[in-house]
């Protein structure tokens, strides 16, 4: 059964920037976004959670390292443990890695510069609630904008993640904007319900603004959130 309008909690930390963009995109794609303040102890009744992009706590110390202690993150952790779908975009991905909900860490871009541009990412796997509207091998054109988006894992960890098919998105050959190992652009957790990516699908849902390739990812996520019974499968 698919709900008409999946309700998505968008967690707003001090320093979040793309929370409005994410809410607008989710709403344009048929979702019902609701803003969740980071200091809130619990989540409202939601079908999925988005941790948006930005500079939570100014990226001070390390991106995501302070935000992960926010009260709302305890609720997100519990929501994920129950099989709820959690999507972390850019700073949200960094927070999920810092919180230990996703493997690996995000380091400074190899260029040592912030980079904002469209990149091509390749869909590695489609049997997940975050990519099931895609086809394997699809090239999606989606912008990145980050200074610390170089995902890193040891060779052993990367091999394990590849064996378990946890790499969902890779930068297309020659289009890696940050030097991440294995060209990794997005990773899902072992149980398949927590996904983080550096590109910004919410900035790619309207052809007037450049591309609508991000819409398939967000629409997949909304489909998945609207089918709670399947989400943890």
């Amino acid at each position, binding site marked *: 059964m698919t709900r008409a309008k999946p309700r998505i909690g968008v967690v707003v930390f001090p320093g979040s920037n793309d929370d409005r963009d994410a809410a607008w995109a989710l709403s344009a794609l048929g979702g019902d976004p609701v803003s969740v303040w980071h200091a809130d102890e619990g989540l409202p009744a939601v079908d999925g959670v988005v941790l948006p992009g930005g*500079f939570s706590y*100014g990226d*001070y110390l390390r991106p995501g390292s302070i935000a992960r202690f926010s009260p709302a993150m305890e609720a997100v952790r519990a929501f994920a443990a129950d099989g709820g779908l959690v999507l972390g975009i850019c700073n949200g991905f960094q927070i999920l890695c810092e919180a230990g909900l996703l493997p690996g860490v995000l380091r400074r871009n190899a260029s040592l*510069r*912030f980079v904002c541009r469209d990149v091509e990412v390749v869909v590695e796997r489609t049997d997940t609630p975050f990519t099931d509207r895609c086809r394997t091998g699809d090239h999606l054109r989606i912008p990145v904008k980050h200074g610390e988006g170089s995902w890193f894992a040891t060779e052993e960890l990367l091999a394990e993640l590849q064996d378990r098919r946890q790499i969902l998105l890779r930068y297309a050959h020659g289009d890696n904007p940050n030097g991440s190992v294995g060209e990794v652009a997005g990773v899902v957790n072992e149980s398949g319900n927590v996904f983080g990516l550096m590109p910004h699908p919410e*900035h790619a849902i309207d052809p*007037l603004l450049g591309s609508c390739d991000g819409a398939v990812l967000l629409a997949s996520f909304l489909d998945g959130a609207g089918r709670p019974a399947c989400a943890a499968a």
Partner: protein
Amino acid sequence: MKQLPSSGPCVLQGPGENAGVVDVGDGQAVAFKVESHNHPSAVEPFQGAATGVGGILRDIVAMGARPVALLDGLRFGGPGWSFARAVAGVGHYGNSVGVPTVGGDTVFDAAYDSNCLVNAMCVGLLPADRVTRAGAGEAGNAVVLFGASTGRDGIGGASVLASQELGEAAADKRPSVQIGDPFTGKKLIEASLELVEQGFVESLQDLGAAGLASSLAEMARDGAGIDVELDRVPLREDDLEPWEIMISESQERMVAVVAPHRMGEVEAVCRTRELACARIGRVTDTGKLRCYHEGELAGEIPADLLTDAAPRYEVERRPRTRAHSAHRPRGPAHTQALLELLASPNVFSRRRVYEQYDHLVGSRTVRRPGIDAAVLRLRPSVRGLAVSLDGSGRKSALDPRTGGAQAVFEAARNVACAGGQPLAFTDCLNLGNPEKPEVAWELAETIAGMADACKALATPVVSGNVSLYNETDGIAIHPTPLVGCVGVVADVRTVPRTWREGDAVVLVGDPKLALDGSEYQALYGRVEGRLPALDFAAEAKLVDFLWQLSPVLSLAHDVSEGGLAVCCAEAALWSGVGAELDLPADTVALFGEGGGQAVASCAPEDVPKLRGVPVHLLGTVGGDTVCGVSLADLRQAWEGIDSVF
């Protein structure tokens, strides 16, 4: 300054407030302003540029507007360390606070070797019926300081840095540059907008140069006074002297005037946003700014003495004379000259600058940086804003009056090329020491030229800023007016985008051109000579033509640095397709600069619609060469890895 036209039917707020505001229709208004942060950036480019962005953002927020775009105008001696640090500083602040940096321009010239210019422009959106002004309002209102605490950073920033020539001791002045904290800046923006949107505050004022002293003086006007208790100001270190508290330029602070019964709500908003908030004083009807410290009156001054009644100086003016010679620059063959111009610092692709800026946050950016003007959609409607920031320096050095006019026309033309009808301008005049008669003359000439251009366009200047004393060891910068323009796009779906295979390419406009003051002359000769005279009526007509015809144009690109040949190459590279063009063989026609021209393209059957201005057919879009050079070679010159920065 009074010469610049500042009124018009769309003007809701002209100069004199934190920013100008114009009505853009549909109940929406736009607040915008450009401001300099030159001296701090010369001393410490990263923090100087970052706090310049922070300052202009607060100016826009003080009008009750949500910032939706930043632009930066950078002038450096060359693309070296200082420039790279300034770009990083702009990005550091703008990216962190979530406001897209969508445009601006960068010029390298030895004249800025010791005095770089960092000008930042901000554009904000607000409901047309909710313009927030900085006045103090009724006696009895509370004066509330919120945001960061106050410390010794930036003590004397305005006087130590901004109003003196720089010399050998510049390095010693680094500690007087303020340190930006964009995270607190972001919280301050969100808190301020919430206070305005909820109607909790009567007015807002940002704290910039000279800190509380100047902000409170600007609020205390129209007979209102302010009593401030300095003991109540949240301090970073508790031994600050009263005068230090008054003039500290600690960043990320705002002052609000609050009706007493709203205090609880204001405090609650600040608490949620994790910002300090203190009721530091109250509005009186004395017309005086009075400071109390430990219960004693520590200072008292009629408020208008610091603003309207400030002493005015008359300065002597003397035209700067420059030697003219009949020397003609001699460049290589035209195709080689084109490649060398594309690879020269002032024409080279700015991609590596704007890719360091988040230009997408807000989901409004219909046209991204890289050509003429950016376009932001006014969601949910299909209307949009076109925004540009342009300036002249080298040309103004030859002829400040014509240079000032050209800066205005170029800003308007860039907006028009993007389909925007220019609504209003903002300007920042960067010059040397005005106590010197030649600089005073340059200032007067620049303003006169700008005023003439604004009148020809019937478009007002609604805000502005002046940065003087840009001199080191007695050598002044070029007179450098930067002009920001905001225009309205009727339908962002029809914004000209790129050349399409088979389109006709035309040259629009037929102005006088010369190599004097051009990029070509700078590269192959010595900058000298006279700028060709502008035909003001033709310039204005060209601007109107470009925005009015934009729905039928597939691309319009302003002819600027490097002249017609460079313009055609840039249009081809932007579009990713070449063109068969019949270009003039004459060096002046190919590389000359002067009055306004644009290269436009449209479907062949639409060419007859291009009327009212001189239109000259150049050729047809197609193939992978332009001006006799392959796109690959042009691209290698224009944005090759090893070329410039």
